[in-house]
């Protein structure tokens, strides 16, 4: 039975700290670069080219960024679909991070679109091209952002005192939540399917063909759990709150089970496609592959003993490693393992990096503002069942 004793409450406190000011500055720098980009073209700030038409604004901001924002999805799956009510205190903070992660991932696409004023074509019959994986990803991510804002709106409605609207919404919440589980399952898997059409331009270590959706979906859920542990640890240290180890420990057990399944799927796919040999070729790609695999396998070993899952530091280290692993899988697939012909090179420019950094800074800043002003985190006493 779900536990509802943890009434969320605004955290309060000062919004202006050296840290928030730094975040604000980084956001402004990114903003200035983007203004420049809209007047002088993508090439004026980014190092993308015809051999690497997708840079970090796609590979990191959208593909990795949205996967990092899967905390809300993973927790909704656990709490509402697998009916594990004990994890309920984690849902709201996770959902908030997802809300920002996704909204910014979605918004950042606009910066990368050359002909951004036509973006509505994706949703317009006559233009929309349903065979395109990009179409499916774009529509699903947009729909999910809307769904998440609705899912999260009770928090704002509470603050604004709109009880009626909130009650009506509550009656439909189960359907919104179902959509909120379906949509990320669709687009997180499709983010992997984006690579299918690149064919042999993708290194065999990452061109898993029809297995790509499963690989990306499994890691998205894994990343969701990892991000929840990561954020819970950071907000407990950052805001001097008790760490919710009681919930994080059993959560990590589920995570380890899924992780073991993922590692098996990943390796079996490589073996069956006969691609595993290329991992021993001594190339940059092979090195990056082992780095990626290590980031998945080390947490698996680290968290295998039950006692280790009670250690806050081991949980945190494992969560960070999994996030690195999930990021590498995506960066490797979209950039390192992409080769469209000889003579093309890509490394992000400083301006390109600063936009990505600014986006992350803005996300953290917005998260801090919201949890200080709105009822998101469980009230400060230790959570008891």
């Amino acid at each position, binding site marked *: 039975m779900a536990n509802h004793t943890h009434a969320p409450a605004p955290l309060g406190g000062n919004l202006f700290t050296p840290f928030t000011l730094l975040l604000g500055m980084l956001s402004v720098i990114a903003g200035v670069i983007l203004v420049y980009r809209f007047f002088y073209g993508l090439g004026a700030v980014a190092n993308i080219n015809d051999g690497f038409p997708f840079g970090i604004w796609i590979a990191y901001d959208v593909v990795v960024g949205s996967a990092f924002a899967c905390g809300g999805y993973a927790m909704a799956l656990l709490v509402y679909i697998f009916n594990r009510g004990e994890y309920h205190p984690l849902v709201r903070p996770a959902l908030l991070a997802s809300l920002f992660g996704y909204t910014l991932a979605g918004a950042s696409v606009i910066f990368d679109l050359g*002909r951004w004023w036509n973006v509505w074509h994706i949703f317009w019959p006559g233009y929309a091209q349903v065979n395109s994986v990009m179409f499916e990803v774009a529509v699903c991510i947009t729909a999910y952002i809307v769904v998440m804002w609705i899912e999260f709106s009770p928090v704002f409605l509470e603050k604004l005192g709109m009880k009626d609207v909130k009650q009506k919404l509550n009656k439909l919440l189960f359907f919104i939540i179902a959509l909120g589980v379906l949509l990320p399952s669709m687009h997180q898997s499709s983010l992997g399917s984006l690579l*299918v059409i690149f064919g042999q331009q993708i290194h065999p270590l990452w061109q898993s063909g029809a297995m790509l959706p499963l690989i990306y979906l499994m890691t998205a859920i894994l990343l969701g759990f990892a991000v929840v542990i990561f954020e819970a640890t950071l907000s407990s240290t950052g805001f001097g709150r008790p760490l919710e180890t009681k919930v994080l420990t059993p959560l990590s057990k589920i995570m380890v089970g899924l992780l073991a399944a993922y590692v098996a799927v990943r390796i079996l796919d490589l073996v069956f496609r006969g691609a595993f040999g290329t991992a021993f070729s001594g190339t940059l790609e092979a090195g990056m592959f082992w780095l990626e695999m290590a980031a998945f396998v080390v947490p698996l070993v680290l968290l295998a003993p039950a006692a280790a899952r009670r250690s806050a530091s081991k949980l945190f280290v494992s969560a960070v490693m999994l996030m690195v692993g999930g990021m590498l899988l995506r960066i490797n697939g979209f950039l390192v393992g992409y080769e469209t012909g000889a003579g093309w090179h890509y490394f992000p420019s400083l301006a390109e990096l600063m936009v990505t950094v600014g986006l992350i800074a803005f996300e953290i800043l917005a998260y801090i503002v919201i949890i200080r002003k709105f009822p998101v985190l469980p009230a400060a006493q230790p959570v008891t069942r």
Partner: protein
Amino acid sequence: MDRRNFFKASLAGGAALATGAASCPAQARSNKDMPPEAVGLLFDSILCVGCKACVAACKEANGMPPEFSTQEQYWDTPLDISGKTLNVIKAYRHGSLATKDSEENGYAFVKKSCMHCVDPSCVSACPVSAMQKDPKTGIVSYDKEACIGCRYCVAACPFGVPRFTYDKAIPQISKCQLCVHRHKDGKYAACAEVCPTGATLYGKVSVLREEAKRRLAMKPGEKAEFPRGHLRAAQEKQLQGAPEGKGEMRRKGWKDESGQAYPNVAGKYLDHLYGEKEFGGTQMLMLSGVPFEKLGYPDLPPQSDAALSETLQHSLYGGLIAPIAVLGALTFIARRNVRPEDEEGGQNG
């Protein structure tokens, strides 16, 4: 109660997923077929003398700006296709450069422009139908008014053909569209029209394929007639000595180009018509004396990437059957598990 719910939930979810998986094989699609009237180019590397008249003609016909690769910017010197260049001739060089069309100590010329794939990745990738394949001619065209500039087509093309103008605030994709805008005036691809040796021929793919096979059957050094410009079935007939060839062409209002065929000796062709099988077929076909991989053309499997990508998408999302089934199961489960938040009382379902 909880456990029972959990099992029910798992069962419903499993059933929904199975429905999705079951719809899989029914929706699988193979490579697309070439339209019977498809037009394209035949590029014969052995006939190409590297004069680059086609590069200049392409620029003029398509209103593209010059591009410079030398310090003195006297004339157009593109090294590759780009946002400003739709067609280039590249050189293969090896060792002493003694023999044309020889892989060892030789050189060769190769054309780089859109292959007009039978099952193009760019068309499958484009989320907004800006890339279209004409159902009759098979020409792969681009509509900048539809384009959102996402560059998924650029990334998807195995030949690296669609290019993007990164230096523009209002950018667009550029790619060869076989001079489709000139067709209404009875003209055809400018590159083929100007090619002095007939290294680039324009025509129906079926006709071009036959011409290519004719050349592959020749013995090196054998004397033969080589056509130029627009290769038509009737012209081919005339080449073989049929008397009605010229008259038929006049009746159809075609520009008389029959006199432009010329005698030459056959080169040493590799027994490989590039584009016949590669990637599900392309409407630009190529002949060469040097292996195509050396000329920058990838060794591609006979299945198009679009076929696999679309099969996958259709099996997961075809008719929205699987998503709706999964949504139904999820809604059913969530209905039981979600209790209105923060409502005092009434939660003991």
